[in-house]
């Protein structure tokens, strides 16, 4: 079987895989960055004292978490133009990944913040620190330690989820595998290479996650 496996074809199509890898990488980085902002904002809204804001945040988080990402992508890709909003595929894809990951990140950040013991907050209150000072100097530094590892887990999920953007013809890694397959009918070569490249990204993020777990966790003794 292996004699039919054409490494030469993979090498021939290296620029296609390069483009796919680069796009997957860029889309993931940009989406993750925007998702972090969306997640922190949604989390702040979720924890705010204002009921309306809390309601909007819960509606956003729950509607994202209860529906498949593919449906969300299709909704944005086919739905937005009918509402008169026309944006290119890549941007639509980034928007979908941002909204999707943002909802999960909001819950991760919330878990981090609520994991800080109440006594820490009371100690800060008693010293006369304001709400924002307590957040910045006491709560967030401690929340970070428990938040970063699951955030990197979410980053791994996001990279793999970006494969779904191939469904709206964004030329990312999976799509480049599909293109090779349709041109030369070599699915084994195509998707073996695609999988291998995802694996490289995965191990890089996993390494970061293990490192952060060792460095960032502080606990009250």
């Amino acid at each position, binding site marked *: 079987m292996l004699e039919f496996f054409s490494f030469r074809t993979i090498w021939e199509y290296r620029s296609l895989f390069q483009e796919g890898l680069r796009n997957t990488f860029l889309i993931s980085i940009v989406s993750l960055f925007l998702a972090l902002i969306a997640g922190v904002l949604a989390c702040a809204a979720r924890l705010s004292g204002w009921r309306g804001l809390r309601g909007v945040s819960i509606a956003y988080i729950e509607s994202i978490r209860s529906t498949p990402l593919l449906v969300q992508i299709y909704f944005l890709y086919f739905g937005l133009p009918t509402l008169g909003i026309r944006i290119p595929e890549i941007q639509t894809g980034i928007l979908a990944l941002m909204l999707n990951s943002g909802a999960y990140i909001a819950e991760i950040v919330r878990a981090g913040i609520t994991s800080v013991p109440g006594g*820490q907050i009371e*100690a800060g*209150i*008693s*010293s*006369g*620190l*304001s709400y924002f000072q307590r957040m910045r100097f006491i709560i967030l530094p401690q929340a970070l330690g428990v938040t970063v590892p699951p955030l990197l887990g979410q980053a791994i999920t996001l990279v793999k989820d970006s494969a779904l953007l191939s469904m709206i013809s964004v030329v990312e890694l999976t799509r480049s595998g599909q293109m090779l397959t349709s041109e030369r009918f070599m699915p084994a070569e195509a998707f073996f290479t695609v999988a291998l490249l995802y694996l490289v990204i995965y191990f890089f993020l996993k390494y970061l996650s293990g490192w952060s777990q060792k460095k960032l966790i502080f606990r*009250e*003794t």
Partner: protein
Amino acid sequence: MIKFKNVNKWFGSLHVLNDINLQVSAGEVVVVCGPSGSGKSTLIRCINRLERIQKGELFVDGMPLHDSTINLTKLRAEIGFVFQQFHLYPHLSVLENVTLAPIHVRKMKKKEAEALAMEKLERVGLADKATAHPEQLSGGQQQRVAIARGLAMSPKILLFDEPTSALDPEMIGEVLAVMVKLAQEGMTMCVVTHEMGFARQVAHRVIFMDEGKIIETGKPDQFFDNPQSDRAAMFISKILKH
């Protein structure tokens, strides 16, 4: 300095503070004791408004705490609070624990705050632990750092909520020694504790609470040797057995 006037508070249907009247003047050391659930912790947590009173009036340093328009952070900066579980910030060094509020609330320069913090750590006998992290300290040492953290704000009042209850017996002494020194230097203190030795040595008054009420108030020796109420007598006989 502190004045409770017909103060009431409920947790749901539980009447935790029942018509409390109490006055503490500057320089006075008051020990609050009573069985668990008697409302003694709630009483002192009201003084820096970690808990809100629901009825009555409470003045602290001239500020009406029953009024919701007062500047709470400013008031709290003047009141130190020492918790049963210390609650040091685990991500900061001992020195940073002590300088955090002076730098960000008092707006002191870092150098200045560090000099002040070292002086306070010296007072609690832990200047050599300034660079350590809380997890490297024993319970008694952590509690002394917590006291230094309170002192660094030069508070007008220090509140202690069972400061030695979470400590191993051999560490209680070192914390009490620091508290005795503070009391003798004229700090205004409200201390929830069952440490009779401490009460006898430095308290001006002992307040005995049960079921949200102040049952008895007296000088320490008089209260422990000759309690007026049966409830207090029973309580004292129980803590003496240990």
